[in-house]
């Protein structure tokens, strides 16, 4: 009887490691573009993300007004003219790690992954697929990715006057450190 109970506990604990969810509310997403005229850089340190280790589903949510720029005027233009943050206050990504079996959540280390899903910016949804890294640490799960998006794909209109200052492509960097939920 004792062995059966012990076995049950072992099996159950094995399942719970993989059934765990990880989250953060202090994640980082930044974007960057370079032109001869100027560099555009926005940083958001208040990104929320949840990863379901059992399904590989990963969700990000970012408040547009939390993207901070060095220059106040650039931030104002970003919010009022480009992403219209009053109309579309949040940006979201709902996706999945497509090679989940390659990640061993019970073993510390770095794993290369591919993430695919829907990115919504400025009310426009686009499917994106990007490589990334999942790092299993003693504190939880870190996720990192870098990919390129085109503002015009999200109907973000850059007026002709500043068109040369903002590149046609933005490099997006995602860097989140998630802790196990329910702790």
């Amino acid at each position, binding site marked *: 009887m004792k062995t059966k109970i012990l076995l049950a506990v072992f099996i159950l604990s094995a399942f719970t490691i993989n059934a765990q969810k990880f989250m953060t509310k*202090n994640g980082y997403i930044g974007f960057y573009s370079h032109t001869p005229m100027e560099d555009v850089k926005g940083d958001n*340190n208040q990104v929320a993300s949840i990863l379901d280790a059992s399904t590989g589903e990963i969700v990000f*949510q970012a*408040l547009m*007004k*939390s993207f901070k720029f*060095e*220059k*106040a005027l650039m931030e104002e233009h970003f919010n009022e003219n480009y992403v219209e943050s009053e109309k579309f206050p*949040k940006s979201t990504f709902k996706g999945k790690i497509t090679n989940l079996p390659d990640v061993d959540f019970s073993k510390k280390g770095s794993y290369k992954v591919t993430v695919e899903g829907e990115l919504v910016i400025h009310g426009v949804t686009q499917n994106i697929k990007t490589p990334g890294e999942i790092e299993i640490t003693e504190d939880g799960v870190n996720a990192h990715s870098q990919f390129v998006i085109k503002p015009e794909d999200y109907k973000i209109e850059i007026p002709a006057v500043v068109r040369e200052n903002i590149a046609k492509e933005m490099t997006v960097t995602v860097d989140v450190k998630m802790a196990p939920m329910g702790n």
Partner: protein
Amino acid sequence: MKPVIRNLLLFVIILGAAGGIIGLYMYNKKNPDLSKAKADFALQVSELVSEFNQDEASASSKYIDKVVEVTGPVTTIEIKSDSTMNITLADEDQMSGVICTFPGIANPASIEIKEGEIITVRGVCSGMLMDVLLNDCVLVK
């Protein structure tokens, strides 16, 4: 040339120069340093969170882009970079709190704030995700 025309020309040039200087100033203006700023609102973390939970739309129009001073207990501290840190203030009885991002900390690791400590933070309200979000934060002594 006639003095009137010369004076007019001078006036236009000075106006143009002034416009250029103001434009350059506006263009280069950084985000506000709130250490000397006056708050538009000062309240407890629990009050701010309650207002957003009860009616997010009206709390949003009331607080977004305004300078808010919140007082409450520290629940988490996260160092984000070598100059940025996040401090979350939350009331024991509430599910949500206020996440405060401090952008200009010279040495975040040296800041001596403990969990449970009651502090006052001044920041600009950006809105709400799962918690109320403040940016450009400074510690109010």
